[in-house]
């Protein structure tokens, strides 16, 4: 991408046992201001391959001097977070995309209820300064495991006072999501960022309580997880693209010079959607609806894979 921004790692700090924060400063141009909930896609040129992962910006959006991101070490991942934790040093240069936003606050809401799981607190770090500026009614409910995550919990608790609620499952305090949702006034919008299990639990509770789906907003960037190798056949050309266990389908297509429009590379934005002509799909994205996933006609190649040995793509 030609519109990438070159940044320098100005500082690195451990903000939880498995989470590192990186402060990025511009080298050539000024950084763009950004909107609450925005993310950037960071390019990580490891020796093996170039990873591109999306990370939420967690600094105050009004601060155009630097961006901050937090990366949780995912031992089971393919290596993007390991690269960030083990290879990246202060003074290194990185390429990032301009900020984009798939998780903006719904400003017409009467109240904003934020539910964060672990490193999922990051987009709310940029919500909060703007919510305070607008005098918006909000609460942050932060679920973490203090042996692994829980970044920024002390400063958030101090800054937010009675708007902050912490739940440490390593100390057996848990959030009763159904109870929490049942207490919210009409016009509350609910934002979830965290593992899929949290998103599902909240969505189920909302459904039980009869809350409309339109007040539930969630974001979970899934860095592509490895899987079984398979073959992707391109219908128009008959070309056979081998997708290794470690590569995403999108990466394998790109390596074969087949370009697919894409932005977040984490199963959220919907830009890379491809039509599937043949073959079963292992859906791993947040973008397609349950019905679309069940229909099996479309795939998000940035994170999803073949469920079998072969997929035929209509591209």
């Amino acid at each position, binding site marked *: 991408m030609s*519109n990438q921004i070159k940044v320098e790692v100005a500082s690195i700090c451990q903000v939880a046992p498995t989470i590192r924060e990186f402060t990025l400063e511009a080298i050539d141009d000024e950084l763009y*201001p*950004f909107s609450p909930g*925005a993310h950037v896609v960071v390019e990580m040129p490891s020796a093996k391959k170039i990873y591109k992962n999306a990370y939420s910006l967690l600094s105050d959006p*009004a601060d155009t001097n630097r961006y901050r991101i937090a990366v949780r070490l995912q031992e089971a991942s393919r290596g993007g977070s390991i690269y960030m934790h083990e290879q990246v040093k202060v003074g290194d240069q990185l390429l990032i995309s*301009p900020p*984009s936003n798939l998780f903006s606050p719904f*400003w017409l809401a009467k109240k904003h209820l934020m539910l964060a799981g672990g490193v999922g607190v990051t987009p709310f770090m940029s919500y909060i300064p703007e919510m305070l500026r607008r005098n918006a009614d909000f609460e942050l409910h932060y679920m973490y495991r203090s042996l692994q995550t829980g970044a920024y919990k002390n400063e958030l608790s101090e800054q937010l006072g009675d708007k902050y609620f912490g739940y440490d499952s390593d100390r057996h305090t848990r959030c009763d999501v159904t109870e929490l949702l049942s207490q919210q006034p009409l016009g509350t919008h609910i934002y979830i960022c965290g593992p899929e299990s949290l998103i599902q639990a909240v969505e189920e509770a909302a459904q039980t309580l009869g809350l409309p789906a339109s007040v539930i907003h969630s974001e979970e960037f899934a860095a592509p997880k490895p899987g079984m190798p398979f073959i992707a056949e391109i219908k128009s050309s008959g070309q056979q693209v081998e997708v290794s266990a470690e590569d995403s389908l999108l990466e394998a297509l790109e390596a074969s010079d087949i370009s697919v429009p894409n932005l977040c590379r984490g199963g959220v*934005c*919907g830009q890379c959607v491809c039509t599937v002509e043949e073959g079963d799909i292992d859906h791993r994205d947040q973008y397609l609806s349950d019905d679309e996933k069940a229909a099996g006609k479309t795939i998000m190649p940035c994170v999803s894979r073949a469920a079998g040995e072969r997929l035929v793509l209509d591209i």
Partner: protein
Amino acid sequence: MRVAPKEVETFRDDFTYSNSPEAIKRFPFPFPEDEYRYSVNMEPHTPKGREGSAYEHFLDIDEHYLSEMTERKLVLDAMPHRCLAMDHMELACWDMLERLMTSLAEDYSDYFKLTIEGDQWTWENKLLNIHDTFTFGDSSTLPKPPLEYIGCQVQGDFALLDQRDGDLFLDAGMVTCPADWSLAFDAGMSFKEWHGPVPMAHNEGIFERALKYLTAMQVGSPIRRLNWTLTVNARMDTSPETYHEWGHERTSVTPENVGEKVYLRVEVQVMDRMPRSNALMFIIRTYLISLEDIATNPEWAKRMHRTMKTLPAPLIEYKGLNRYHSMVVDYLSQFDPAN
């Protein structure tokens, strides 16, 4: 050669508006091929063409600047609701002010100057004798709310679209020179709702594709598209609010006066992602040129004849050309002997 602003001309009553030869030369002629086809036709809004072209800069300030700013004031004085901004769009309005001021100061430094010291901004507009210092983000420090303040200093209409639930909502804007649409009527509508009246395009999936493209637009990569219609007399404000003043003028076209009375109205529409609010700014910059002036360029006259001749009936109806479309085709046919 750059076109400098000239003395105030009118877009109503005595219609003294006219294009200089330079303005005709740089007119953004909208027809790329002989046959009319509906398409999304979006392209990156990057500088193109020689110095002085209508696409040289992000915003185009031309010889009609003072006239259009005077006309805008007349409209807003009579109908203040032609500018509106819902409460949740405050930050988007500041985004717009920042984008317009910084690009004007950079591209037209003879006319505009912006000095930024922290959050203290000083803005000078030498064409309108404006010189204000204000606190960025604090509307109480400006003489007018931010959208209205900057909107009254830039040619073109403006809309700010809030992005939520994968859709765009028309929640703020300043619209004083529309091609027959009303901001007050469309306010709060979603993308498909405000495009409801457009014929033909709905079945072709054009709006789905356009919406997908627009919601994915990134900061720093503006795009543009051209739109066009025909207007009787050089009237900027062809709004539903003032229909009683201009609707009847369509009956005044005759084969004798069609060349001077009918204007090609071109909109250069620019879309740009706003960084602080994630809103989409939509600029509709309107240019008017009489058929007579088009005829000074034989290629344009020939091309326009062919396009008008193949215009589908639903579009003739939608654009409100029923009463005089055939006179336009007849007039232009003299420049296209082969057809």
